[in-house]
């Protein structure tokens, strides 16, 4: 069987619902076999284990999962609501800001859309935002944090790109810095658009309340230091990204299991 036919067969299986990891594995095996190096697919895979710092990914994922299970999304939405809920388009801006923060807390591991979307989408609908707008907003905001530290895609990109001799070399720290401005622009643009859409939504007539804000801050007091800890730890240079991930996971684990019980 020719290699084109084999690849075509694998792509057909992909369209029919074969898990994508098996599709990638299959294409690698078929291609490398044609070149006579089929072992290379597995040595490369095993070589992943030689990358220092890859452990950051499971550890940030653990932190994100624990946070979403501990009710952190609700506390974050409450806090953003107390802060921004009285603006026109307030709830939509709350959704954007809360999603961006939660993603930053959890390394953009994909839990944001599940954890926040399930909370925010019904709220947006109930407040009178159009269905398609609400769905689109939650989906877009859920990937917003991709640009903010410590997002896993950025870390992964850094791991892959760092060994390649580019000039200047790609470092994860630089990637995090580079994400800040475009991320902030996207936040601002989405929020401006939310205000525009929000004109058509009946006002909640909710006034800003310093008391509610303070109590929301107290409610989220264990989550709030997290982005500061994570960013400070990444940039002071003593700890590697994987070590920051370990500390984040340990902090969240202790807070969730010991402090909040």
């Amino acid at each position, binding site marked *: 069987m020719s290699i084109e036919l084999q690849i075509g067969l694998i792509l057909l299986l992909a369209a029919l*619902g074969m898990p994508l990891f098996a599709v990638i594995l299959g294409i690698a095996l078929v291609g490398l076999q044609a070149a006579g190096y089929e072992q290379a697919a*597995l040595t490369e895979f095993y070589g992943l284990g030689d990358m220092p710092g890859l*452990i950051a990914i499971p550890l940030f994922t653990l932190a994100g999962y624990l946070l979403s299970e501990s009710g952190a999304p609700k506390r974050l939405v409450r806090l953003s609501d107390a802060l921004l809920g009285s603006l026109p388009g307030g709830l939509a801006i709350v959704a954007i800001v809360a999603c961006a923060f939660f993603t930053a807390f959890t390394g953009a591991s994909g839990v944001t859309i*599940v954890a926040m*979307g*399930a909370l925010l989408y019904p709220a947006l609908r109930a407040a009178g935002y159009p269905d398609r707008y609400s769905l689109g907003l939650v989906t877009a905001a859920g990937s917003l944090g991709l640009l903010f530290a410590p997002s896993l895609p950025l870390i992964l990109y850094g791991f892959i790109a760092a060994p390649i001799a580019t000039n200047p070399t790609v470092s994860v720290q630089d990637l995090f810095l580079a994400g800040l401005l475009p991320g902030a622009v996207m936040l601002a643009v989405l929020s401006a658009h939310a205000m525009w859409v929000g004109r058509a939504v009946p006002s909640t007539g909710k006034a800003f309340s310093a008391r509610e804000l303070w109590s929301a801050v107290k409610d989220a007091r264990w989550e709030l230091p997290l982005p500061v800890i994570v960013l400070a730890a990444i940039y002071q240079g003593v700890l590697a990204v994987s*070590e920051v991930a370990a500390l984040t996971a340990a902090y969240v*684990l202790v807070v*969730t299991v010991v402090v909040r*019980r």
Partner: protein
Amino acid sequence: MSESVLRRALRGLHRAEDALLALALGGLLLLAVVQIVLRIGFDEGLSWGEPISRAGVLWLAMLGALGASRQQRHIAIDAIPRLLPDGAWRAVHALTQFAAAALCGWAAWIGWGLMQSEREFPLPFVAGIESWVPMLVLPFGFGLLALRFVLAAFAPRPVDEPAAAASDEAEGPRS
């Protein structure tokens, strides 16, 4: 009767996988924290810590993949299968799962060969353990995955209600 024995064996296996996953993740976390404390506090480190944690990530990934295939939660393009009537779905599902099993089996076979050639010229991995031992993850990980996909080929069509499932998760118990 054999049915219920099989079911119970499967449930036991799932529990063992879960325990192993939690243990591996907890162990890796503990190891990483201990290493940081040792390095910053005492300017020391466990020489076996780094290799163990690197190999551990691979083992963890394989265990996680096994867990995901148990619940059939591997990412796949489901646009076409979703539209199929039950009979056609069954055939297409069996085909794709068997194909995935075959590919995993192929990878396991190559992994076995790699491990064998490593055994002929072993290097030390960490004290008392040779370098082919962590490589066991290749044949066993992919081999078990292949087995999982063979089992999945006979699984009934899942009733999917993603929206309901997601909100259940978010509205779980608050602390």
